[in-house]
């Protein structure tokens, strides 16, 4: 997140509220994540991939997959197109990309364009499965898989991280302006309807 004196407001900042005790679904916002789209110049995907591997250690997947090195991840969101994320935020992300592949790719900052949620918990998968029309079975949507799809009239980019203590971990990015509507749809898909905040827990409908 920028150290600007203009206060930043993340997409979900006033939406996720503490919820009552419970197991089920755990949702946290990833406000600090830096995001950018990376699109290879015409016919330059191969050169770009080599450069990224050489300079930044990430191997941009050719398909809907995710590769990570240190804090930087690249996710395939289309042919020759990736969504890049950086755990330390926008500035390191853009400087890394512009410095190293600015000549081979169109890089566009999307750190403010998307709002990102992390979703886990023993019933997170079931809750999410209600909303998206793709197969989230562990055998079908494995660790490192990425999907651009639709969730209740809203386009999302969804990816799965290494499993955590509360089970499978998904992260999803929605366009910032949809945050409130998307949150309604997502929380409606956790029966119990309670919204939740970092480390708060929601009881889901499945049990």
């Amino acid at each position, binding site marked *: *997140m*920028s*150290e*600007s*004196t*203009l*206060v*930043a*407001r*993340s997409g979900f900042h*006033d939406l996720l509220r503490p919820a009552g005790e419970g197991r089920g679904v755990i949702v946290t916002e990833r406000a600090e994540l830096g995001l950018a*789209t990376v*699109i*290879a*110049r*015409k016919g330059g995907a191969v050169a770009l991939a080599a450069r990224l591997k050489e300079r930044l250690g990430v191997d941009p997947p050719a398909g809907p997959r995710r590769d990570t090195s240190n804090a930087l991840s690249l996710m395939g969101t289309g042919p020759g197109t990736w969504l890049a994320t950086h755990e330390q935020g*926008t500035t390191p992300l853009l400087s890394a990309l512009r410095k190293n592949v600015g000549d081979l*790719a*169109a890089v*566009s*900052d*999307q*750190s*403010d*364009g*998307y709002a990102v949620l992390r979703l886990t918990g023993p019933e997170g998968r079931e809750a999410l*499965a*209600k909303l*998206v*029309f*793709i*197969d989230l*079975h562990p055998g*079908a949507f494995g660790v490192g898989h990425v999907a651009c799809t639709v969730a*209740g*009239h*809203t386009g999302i980019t969804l990816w799965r991280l290494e499993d955590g203590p509360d089970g499978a971990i998904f992260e999803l990015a929605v*366009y*910032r*302006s*949809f*945050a*409130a*509507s*998307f949150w*309604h*749809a997502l929380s*409606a*898909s956790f*029966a*119990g*309807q309670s919204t939740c905040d970092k480390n708060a827990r929601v009881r889901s*409908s499945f049990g």
Partner: protein
Amino acid sequence: MNDGIRLAGGLIDRKRPIALRFDGKPFSGFAGDTLASALLASGVRLFGRSFKYHRPRGLLTAGSEEPNALVELRTGARREANTRATTIELFEGLEATSQNRWPTLAFDLMAVNSLLSPFLVAGFYYKTFMWPRAWWERLYEPAIRRAAGLGRASMEEDPDTYEVAHAFCDVLVIGAGPAGLAAALAAARSGARVILCDEDFVPGGRLNAERHEIDGSPGSAWAAEVGAELRSFPDVRVMRRTTVFGVYDAGMSGARTFGALERVSDHLAVPPPGQPRQRMWKIVARRAVLAAGAIERPIVFGGNDRPGVMMASAVRTYVNRFAVTPGRRIALFTTCDDGWRTALDLASDSVPVEAIIDARVTVDPAILEAAKRQGTRTFLGSQVIDTHGSPVERITVRDRDGQLTRISIDTLAVSGGWNPTVALTTHVGGRPKWSDTLAAFVPGDLPGGMTVAGAARGAFGLAEALREGLAAGQEAAEATGHAKSANPIWRADDEARGVTAFWHVAGSTGKAFVDFQHDVTDADVALAAREGYRSAEHLKRYTTLGMATDQGKTSSVAGHAIMAAITGRSIPEVGTTTFRPPYSPVAVGAVAGIHRGRHFRPTRLTASHAWAREQGAVFVEAAQWLRAQWYPRPGEKDWLESAVREVKSVRSAVGVCDVSTLGKIDIQGADAAIFLDRVYTNMFSTLPVGRVRYGLMLREDGFVMDDGTTARLSDDHYVMSTTTTGAGKVMQHLEHARQVLWPELDVQLVSVTEQWSQYSIAGPRSRELLERLLGDAIDVGNAAFPYLACAEFTWHGLPCRLFRISFSGELAYEIAVPARHGDAAMRAIVAAGQEFGITPYGTEALGIMRVEKGHVAGNELNGTTTADDLGLGKMMSQKKDFIGRVLARRPGLADPARAVLVGIKPVDRSVRLNAGAHFLAPGAQSRLENDQGYVTSVAFSPMLGHWIGLGLLSGGRERIGERIRAHDPLRGKDTEIEVVSPCFFDPEGMRLKS
């Protein structure tokens, strides 16, 4: 009246009595009962009234195919019309009301229709009610509509919630009878991902209704065991109370989409907190096993609709599953061995069977013996030709010698054989085929990936069904890459299944019904034949046979059979009515899911939304966005007063407006300039870096598609802006051009609409404000930053963009900041603007100012205007090709008579103008032939002090100064107007360049 009583056994929990009310009267039943079985156990025989004749009707079936026993379930906002008593699970406090009767179910005045039945034959209304014509809407139709319909809608917003959910599996098994359970188990043991759906609340299908044994234990016990084992697999989902209602198209992988409805809470008084009432599932299955069973069919004979006449299989269901006998003196009218089993079941419950009437001359000696042993009278080669009493008290039997015998009974069980439930095999175009051996339609061409097992394909024997189920489940699992599993061999019998096609008792004395709910009789079918409505579809549409809430499940085939006999054709020659989704009715709310009320569509909010709300802004929908429309101040009486104030402030000082909703597309690459030259009518390759240009975009058919400004940030980097409503459409259009039309170009496109919060700061003092706001972050002086300049700069450590563009016609800038900081930026702008008298303005003020300037917007960019229509012809470059150039040359698009953009003023300046008024020459008659165009947009101009407008006027450019009329008969107005140039204010554009 209490002739129905409880027997021993059954699948009801006598330790859990449940109280309910029917037509206000208290009754009780047990957990495991349906409303039908509970009322039957309390002696209720009369459940409903038929649609047309209001004939008294009782239970015909024990399942979802029930045509007669429909009730209004629940009350108030939860009232649910036409609910089948045979499928309603009891819950504490259940309230049901009979419907389509007045004043009461027992005494229904509308039953007078029965007396009129000689007139009310099929299609009678097509032959009358035509004179005098005006009486149709005034008299005839209101009368018909008063009689129409069955139950009543709640007329209140549904208080319950619904949701739509998704599931994927290897094998979807439809139906949890013997075949379905076997299929699911075989697939599950192979490790396949299985979903098993059944509409009932207890898996087992007919196993729960018959006295079959599997491996020596009762079928229902076996079903429970298999159900338990299935639940133990992690990748198996057993869905009770779930009807697969539709089969849809597949993909190349073979995975097919199915629609299913889960009744999550319908068996409870109200849904538990957070639970929906129902959930619609979209299931994607690689393979499907249809094991939907079969439906027993009635026989068409005189008086076959009286309460107490019931399907034989239903009698067995009530006796065996619900432990209640429908009567004490039961007769059986059958055409198949299967029907005789009813007698055996009853006998073992010591309910005497008075008589068995079988239309066949010879039957399996074994069952004949068994019946004789119980002292049951048997009539072979005989028919029931009439019934008497309501509920039925007596039947008239005609034996093979024509002798008539009257038998006193209280229940007549009927079995005309079975129709396999083939509906789901036909949803994607397959047609069922006729089987002479079974005298029934069986599945024909199947949807890819679907197999059918058990009774659904005519394998009526239990052992057969189990074998077929196992094989189908195994095969489906293997087809989805799973290993063969060790399968059990279950011991069960294949009971006798002889059947003879027999549909209709000729020479019945009483009315013989084919479609019970719609009161379609054998005579109606004969009339349809006589009048030439002989194809299955004509028969259905003319008589409404098969169009009732049961969709002909118990009536269609019999109707076709009677038509076939009359017209000397075979049943398949008459045709099959194809089945369409849904298999059984689905609530509207369930399909809508959570997208209701304010959540019908997503709402998009800009970063300054919270701030605008604090200012008391009124918001308006713009595509999916909400935008501030105006900012009312205390004492302002309407939107116009507020908007006028906002305009005056902008034109005299400075205002700020959130323009973030406009589309923003990042366009990069070595060929970005060439690309823009091809998608815009005007040149962008010549645009210097650091400059902005207004661009016009056409569709390939030559009409205007969208407009906006595009800035060149560097040689190979542009950022394009689109209209708010056009953003998505333009992005798709540009991607098409990039990927399909000119793949050789080096261009990269991405939407950055959401990355930037963009604010228009407009007015003579905007520069001062920006100097104060931005300090030395950027020099905004006229020299360094002239009209149509743009720059990227850093402010508060943020990458920001500044554009000197103006929609208002004032000296104006648009500043773009990263959206996370959009809220703070707006607050900073307003704070810095205080001393310059800054005023936030909304879309109304924006609209007024753009009309004053003659800028086109949505009402002019309506998809039927050309560049030249809008006075933008000069933007059609002659130096290059671009999308839309060629077809814009067509005569129709270059016709001098086309309506083109003009400005209008009311001659009487005090008059208000209205958009949508049409242009007429003075003195011209109000006729379409005299139409000269119309008013597209109007505004009250604070600067001019009167209403002004824009319009599209035929040959308008040559008519400046002319006086014509804005003709508005719809609002009773006809205003003399003056045609003027579209630009009303500062035509030289001094202000925006100042």
